[in-house]
């Protein structure tokens, strides 16, 4: 039946999309071409799409990208796995174009359909393609080839395997840095599919060469490969085969390479195991934490917690206390705010590792220093991670310093900072407890309701809702509802509207009784407000709280007010009143 099927495809192609009639289907703009391509996949016109493309009707990169992507899904459409090799020629051409995204997509599709080739087809059709690409004239085809070795290697005969290894070796020392970068980025992946003996004989020398390339953009990619390679080798070989290169990378003269080492530090640590970590990585990590470039220090600071967590347990505490903590202390007063804030986002995690006593003695002073940092992002990062400390020493230890920090952030001149601290309020309230909250933080939460930035008022409203969910309706009735309702008489209409927004948010959490008895009368009274914006927000509020009210209140109190608003002189008020009426009826 696949024969039949192919005939249908041909038929379809020739009858509809012959060379001279494509103008009927395609206008000159890219969007239509894109749409057409998607349709293509539906109507199976693969042959003609390739045909048209060859005659450069499609030279738009966007179109080529879509073509490269679609061709990866065409296996069934060309008649199943036994015909899948028909897809290779167009994908091969696409894998040589200049535009990186198109090429990458073509390689992705080639990798996908390589799995659908039988072992024989793989050797007859796919592997020759890889070879052609690998020995192409222009760098683009050689770059693409790098991504294809690892998908065909496991499934071909040993002679072909030897050829593939040879091609990969050649590309690793290619003249063009673009190709060496592509090879370096696939080195780890290729190592994984190789037999162990070739990892040692081939990959290590390639790895060493790439890691000392003249271009730092190549060297840094070798660091990534280092993780996979180290995982593949037996522990006893690591010291001689991998470590010299890794040590050299950690002290590379280019900050980009050092950055990469810092960024991959946790993976490297896991890959080389605990002995090497103790002897080599600890000093290397110390150096990265003291690096002269802020980028590198920030990347290393980000890894402090993970690195400490993964240290061998037997002398973890000793290593942290004598080697890591002194560096961390220096970073707390770093000159660069990104370094400090990277540290602040993980430093709290050290308390679980070091335990109560060490935390109080050594870490607490650092937390407190960071809580007083000049940069708000640092303070926010500390506050957002309070839960880790809470588990170890309880938050009370911090609360004295926490409060001024929170108050200062709450009043920060930048509204985004205020917004960030509001978002942590429910979490803080949960950890600090209702008493502390009522005493110290409640005023802040209410003050945000009259902030001059709408986004803050909105967040404050949402915050109240979360607090009520946490502390319960009774607490709400006693502490916040009176204050919220009091704002209904404020001379500023924006504040009066805030009352309505709060009611919208709180009614459900507060329940029917509080909503009907306390909130509803205020809302109804506001329907006579002079400002139209307030009045149509009354209509919206009534629509919102309607489901919480009982049907009696709805009929006798809400309905008449909405009907009155529906005859308002302002057209927006009318509109929203009618919306509310119809919503509440259904």
């Amino acid at each position, binding site marked *: 039946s696949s024969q039949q099927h192919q005939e249908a495809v041909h038929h379809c192609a020739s009858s*509809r999309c012959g060379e001279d009639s494509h103008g009927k289907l395609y206008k000159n703009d890219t969007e239509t071409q894109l749409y057409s391509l998607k349709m293509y996949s539906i109507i199976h016109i693969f042959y003609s799409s390739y045909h048209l493309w060859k005659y450069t009707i499609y030279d738009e990169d966007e179109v080529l990208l879509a073509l490269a992507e679609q061709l990866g899904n065409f296996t069934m459409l060309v008649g199943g796995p036994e015909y899948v090799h028909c897809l290779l020629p167009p994908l091969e051409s696409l894998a040589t174009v200049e535009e990186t995204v198109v090429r990458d997509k073509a390689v992705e599709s080639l990798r996908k359909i390589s799995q659908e080739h039988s072992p024989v087809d793989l050797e007859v059709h796919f592997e020759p393609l890889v070879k052609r690409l690998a020995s192409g004239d222009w760098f683009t085809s050689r770059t693409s080839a790098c991504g294809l070795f690892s998908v065909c290697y496991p499934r071909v005969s040993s002679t072909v395997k030897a050829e593939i290894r040879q091609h990969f070796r050649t590309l690793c020392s290619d003249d063009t840095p673009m190709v060496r970068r592509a090879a370096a980025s696939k080195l780890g992946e290729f190592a994984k599919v190789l037999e162990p003996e070739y990892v040692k004989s081939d990959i290590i020398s390639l790895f060493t060469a790439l890691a000392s390339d003249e271009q730092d953009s190549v060297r840094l990619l070798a660091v990534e490969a280092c993780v996979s390679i180290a995982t593949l080798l037996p522990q006893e070989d690591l010291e001689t085969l991998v470590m010299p290169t890794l040590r050299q990378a950690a002290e590379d003269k*280019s*900050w980009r390479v050092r950055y990469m080492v810092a960024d991959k530090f946790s993976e490297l640590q896991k890959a080389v195991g605990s002995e090497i970590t103790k002897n080599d990585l600890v000093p290397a990590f110390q150096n990265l934490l003291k690096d002269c470039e802020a980028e590198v220090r920030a990347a290393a600071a980000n890894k402090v917690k993970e690195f400490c967590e993964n240290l061998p347990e037997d002398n973890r505490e000793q290593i942290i206390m004598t080697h890591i903590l002194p560096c961390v202390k220096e970073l707390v007063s770093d000159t660069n705010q990104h370094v400090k804030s990277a540290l602040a986002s993980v430093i709290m995690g050290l308390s679980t590792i070091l335990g109560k006593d060490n935390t109080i003695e050594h870490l607490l002073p650092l937390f407190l220093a960071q809580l007083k940092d000049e940069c708000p992002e640092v303070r926010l990062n500390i506050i957002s991670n309070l839960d880790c400390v809470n588990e170890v020493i309880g938050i009370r230890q911090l609360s004295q310093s926490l409060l001024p920090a929170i108050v200062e952030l709450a009043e920060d001149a930048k509204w985004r900072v205020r917004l960030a601290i509001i978002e942590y309020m429910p979490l803080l309230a949960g950890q600090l407890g209702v008493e502390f909250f009522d005493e110290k933080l409640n005023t802040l939460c209410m003050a945000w309701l009259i902030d001059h930035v709408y986004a803050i008022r909105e967040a404050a409203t949402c915050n109240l809702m979360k607090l009520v969910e946490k502390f319960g309706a009774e607490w709400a009735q006693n502490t916040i509802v009176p204050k919220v309702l009091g704002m209904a008489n404020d001379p500023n209409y924006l504040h009066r509207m805030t009352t309505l927004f709060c009611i919208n948010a709180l009614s459900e959490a507060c329940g029917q009784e509080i909503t009907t008895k306390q909130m509803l009368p205020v809302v109804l009274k506001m329907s006579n407000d002079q400002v139209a914006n307030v009045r149509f927000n009354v209509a919206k509020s009534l629509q919102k709280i309607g489901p919480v009210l009982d049907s009696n209140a709805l009929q006798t109190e809400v309905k008449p007010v909405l009907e009155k608003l529906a005859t308002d002189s302002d057209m927006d008020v009318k509109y929203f009143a009618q919306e509310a009426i119809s919503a509440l009826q259904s």
Partner: protein
Amino acid sequence: METTKLPPSSPSSPTTSFSVPSAEKVDGFPRRSMRRARQRRSHSSSQFRYQSSQVELTPLPLLKDAPVAELHDLFCKKLQQCCVLFDFLDCVADLKGKEIKRAALNELVESVATSRGVLIEPLYPEAIKMISVNIFRTLPPSENPEFDPEEDEPTLEASWPHLQLVYEFFLRFLESPDFQPSMAKRYIDQKFVLQLLELFDSEDPREREYLKTILHRVYGKLLGLRAYIRKQINNIFLRFIYETEHFNGVAELLEILGSIINGFALPLKAEHKQFLVRVLIPLHTAKSLSIFHAQLAYCVVQFMEKDATVTEFIIRGLLKYWPKTCTQKEVMFLGEIEEILDVIEPSQFIRIQEPLFKQIAACISSPHFQVAERALYFWNNEYILSLIEENCQVILPLVFATLYRVSKEHWNQTIVSLIYNVLKTFMEMNSKLFDDLTASYKVEKQKELKRERERSELWRGLEEYEERRMQMLTEAARNQRNLQERSLASPRRQLFVQKLPPLPCKAAAPSF
């Protein structure tokens, strides 16, 4: 023999060009802002920390006071003294040492520039070593990754007081009448040149300016390095276009290339044509085109003036990369097209007039008035006007419908009056053709609408066809399942083969 000479007046006005915000494609560095904390506007490279122990400098006797016999020895000592690096971020550190080095550098510059016979062979490795130690360094991360080259101040190199003198020395060294390329080429090798090229990424425009002149001299004097330099510049550009979109020195490198192209021998080598088609033309896709467009356009026009046959490649290339959404870039493209048309040969013009004027018509109908205006200005250019006139029969039908429509629809009065002028020009050129086109405008319009309708019907037909086919397929699958179930009972029954429905629009295929 290829010769090279920087054009006396540089081809372009903007000599300062700075870095671009970039999305690093390959090395994947988060380019988030690392500044703000420090407000200093200068930075220094990571190299300083690698000098383990700081040497105390002691002033040496002056070169001009030295007896001739000791001159070379003293020169050499001074060169070695200048290999010591200083921390310029700490501006009060080791002021005495900094002053000694500055004085020594000044003397070296002076000596190389004015006195003859100083440059003897043993000094070459020492001089190149001093230059390498001072200028070759890993450039630090950009202080301001969201840097707008047209708005922001660039970050300046802190050690410039010394660095400038080192560059000055290097330049005088290369320009000295005593300079012997045959000796220098042992020390100024490929590795040296590669490092030199990497420095073009410096954010400091003063440094790039020196590098530009120096690389130009190196290219001029060391013939063996020429091909290598061109290849490495290619690699830098390709990386910039397809990988990082970030390199500060594109404009400077293009300026050097402008003069290199000028010296190309004829006929052009395949390598040079490939450079034009695969590197120069794709450079037009860069986001930061505005920073180096003048230099790029100069290079492109240089190519055309060398060999007119590349014109078609160039124009088709520009049309391929024509900006879709960025009107600013569109205006730049139009400017470049005008520069090209200014020197185009009429025989080449005929080859590209059709696609070109389709694009120009599209620009005229742009709602952005600057784009439309820039395109309409072509009609103020006498040479272009003469080309249009010669090929009026082809061009007028291409642009007529657009001109006619836009003259009635455009919101901007200036555009409307410019279009009237253009229409008037055409009317004077060929009144017969103009009248014919006016008469057939409505008919053509109707035809276009009809084609559009037919096209959408064709698609609808295909979609319906597909829908029906899917239905049939599911039905067939269901039937087959049923049959299989039944065939358990009566195994001899034949499977029912479902035929595809007839194709919907074979009969109704519109003709045009």
